[in-house]
């Protein structure tokens, strides 16, 4: 029968009171253990969102960067005069360039790559426009670094790949014109090609048959020629310089840059930064809410222990007097009442953890709900759709230790003043107390 037995018996002999206190404390402690995982889950969700936003922004930026660093070089449009049945006809056309004449384009500083593209329109016997044959160099490194040179929006089959030969991707209007689909064969300018993909309508509304540059040059009898040089600068910042250098070196060329795309890239970057800032601000708000909630719970816990122990001390003043008369020191009295407060809180902590096993996840989601604000508390799916990701609280050994540690600490803090008061009671006064 020691101080621990006395403390335990004192708690158990007032069962209803102890039960009520334990219920109140345990609920508070359940809330308390629900908050840290909630913060962690929010942090993880926020980090995922930020990572996702950052990754998306980086990808979009790089895509825009690739297009925005693109400089199209052509010869100016010119009239071609064809002999007609009755008189000569003038046709506006895009003259072709000999690739070798422009081999020095690659030597211009800050030029990352020069890609020749052949585009030749095909007409029927009456001269009516049918479609374009577009030749793209199917080089592995070029396709990896500059995928924008390939046709976009493939709706069936596949796109062109590095090393492809004898294959073609048809824009759907061209496919309809030939009456073929994927895996069909089409004869273009006397040569058979296997259709590997169908292109839907793209941003340029092109009506084209895409194939390798070499094959396009062969079937159109334009070997060694290109209609456009797609010159890529090393970065957006260098586009202006490269543009000027090309104009200086080849004044006959018409040089077109994607200035609006550069602006778009900047806007996108800005929007992405704003979203990340909003996500971080949301996280800060969650953390401050959590801090306030934890503060309130801790305070409530301390106050519950404080009042119950003050009441206990008042109720047991005569017992304190008896203990002192028997020779108990102030330390013994202080220890006994603090131990009672700590035990009460510890029992509540264990009950709180038991409740927490079932209720912590629900409580965590209730206490720190996800903001509806897009971009935070949600994770970006691969399709770019924002999905809610609810907090799941797992009772880990660390959380158990945290819960019990907090319970002990709060019990000690809450019972410190009542225990001190008990220890300071003068025995003569305590013995007179009724």
């Amino acid at each position, binding site marked *: 029968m020691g101080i621990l037995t006395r403390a335990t018996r004192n708690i158990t*002999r007032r069962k209803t009171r102890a039960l009520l206190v334990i219920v109140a404390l345990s609920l508070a402690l359940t809330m308390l253990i629900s908050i840290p995982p909630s913060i962690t889950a929010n942090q993880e969700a926020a980090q995922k969102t930020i990572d996702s936003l950052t990754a998306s922004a980086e990808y979009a930026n790089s895509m825009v960067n690739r297009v925005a660093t693109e400089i199209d070089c052509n010869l100016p449009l010119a009239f071609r005069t064809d002999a007609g049945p009755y008189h000569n006809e003038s046709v506006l056309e895009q003259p072709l360039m000999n690739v070798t004449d422009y081999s020095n384009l690659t030597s211009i500083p800050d030029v990352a790559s020069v890609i020749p593209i052949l585009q030749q329109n095909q007409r029927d016997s009456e001269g009516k426009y049918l479609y374009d044959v577009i030749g793209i160099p199917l080089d592995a490194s070029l396709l990896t670094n500059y995928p924008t040179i390939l046709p976009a929006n493939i709706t069936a089959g596949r796109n062109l790949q590095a090393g492809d030969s004898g294959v073609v991707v048809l824009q759907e209007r061209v496919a309809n014109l030939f009456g073929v689909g994927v895996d069909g064969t089409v004869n273009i300018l006397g040569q058979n090609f296997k259709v590997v993909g169908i292109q839907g309508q793209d941003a340029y509304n092109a009506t084209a048959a895409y194939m390798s540059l070499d094959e396009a040059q062969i079937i159109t009898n334009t070997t060694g020629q290109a209609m456009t040089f797609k010159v890529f600068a090393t970065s957006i910042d260098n586009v202006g310089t490269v543009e000027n250098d090309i104009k200086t070196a080849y004044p006959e060329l018409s040089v077109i840059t994607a200035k609006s795309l550069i602006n778009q890239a900047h806007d996108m970057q800005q929007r992405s930064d704003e979203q990340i800032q909003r996500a971080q601000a949301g996280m800060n708000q969650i953390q401050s809410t959590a801090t306030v909630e934890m503060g309130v719970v801790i305070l409530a816990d301390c106050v519950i222990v404080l009042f119950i122990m003050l009441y206990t001390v008042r109720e047991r003043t005569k*017992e304190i007097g008896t203990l*002192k*008369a028997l*020779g108990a020191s*102030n330390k013994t009295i202080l220890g006994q009442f603090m131990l009672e407060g700590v035990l009460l809180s510890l029992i509540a902590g264990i009950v709180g953890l038991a409740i927490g096993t079932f209720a912590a996840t629900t409580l965590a989601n209730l206490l720190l709900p996800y903001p509806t604000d897009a971009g935070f508390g949600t994770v970006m799916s691969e399709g770019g759709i924002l999905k809610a990701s609810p907090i799941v609280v797992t009772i880990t050994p660390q959380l158990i230790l945290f819960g019990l540690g907090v319970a002990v600490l709060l019990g000690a803090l809450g019972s410190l003043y009542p225990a001190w008061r008990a220890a300071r009671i003068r025995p003569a006064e305590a013995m007179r107390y009724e």
Partner: protein
Amino acid sequence: MSELVLKIENLSKTYMLGKRDVRCLCDLNLEIKRGQFVAIMGPSGSGKTTLLNIIGCIDKPTKGKVLIDGVDIANLPESQLYKIRRDKIGFVFQSFNLLPYLNARENVELAMELTGKFKGQRKQRAKDLLATVGLLGREEHRPNRLSQGEQQRVAIARALANDPAIILADEPTGNLDTQNKHEIVKLLANLNSTQKTTTIMVTHDEQVAASAERILLINDGKIQDKQAQKETFFDNNQKQSSR
């Protein structure tokens, strides 16, 4: 060891009642020899309990010296006083003051636990003491399952637990019926004669006081020795029984 267990010199105690000083004890002098059984009597408010509380180190005098086994306790700090209470004093209260959540043995052990005695040693001594006060077989009973007389016996056993120099009994029979009163007084007297424990008992009851070898009267804060009555409590009791 000195023959005097308690020596009080010029003891005064004044209480503040609002702005007024109320003198409770006034230049009181007293000497009690080791092994004496002393009864203190006096009207209500005469200062009997105050004197007992000062001797028991649970109240402090305003002036004077109180020497227990030669140690002046009047000016000792609380950090020393609790040791005197623990080692030198045994209290028996009118309302027993047993801890309701401990059984009889544990109540007796509690006094010993505060001195740091080992559990086995405590348990055996508590059993022996309970047997001495006639509670053999009742050791594991909680106070609410004991009669008032039995509860007071447990309180006496508790007071004896640490072999105190003085047992202070404040109206030990005040809450008891006649039968139990006689038994408790008899027990205190027997313990005093067999164990030579100095006992100072405050009582209103002259019959109870008659069992003491020395009776002190307190009136208006001053003390006077009253010659022990020739007919002891036990003689009276015998006469009453034979009628």
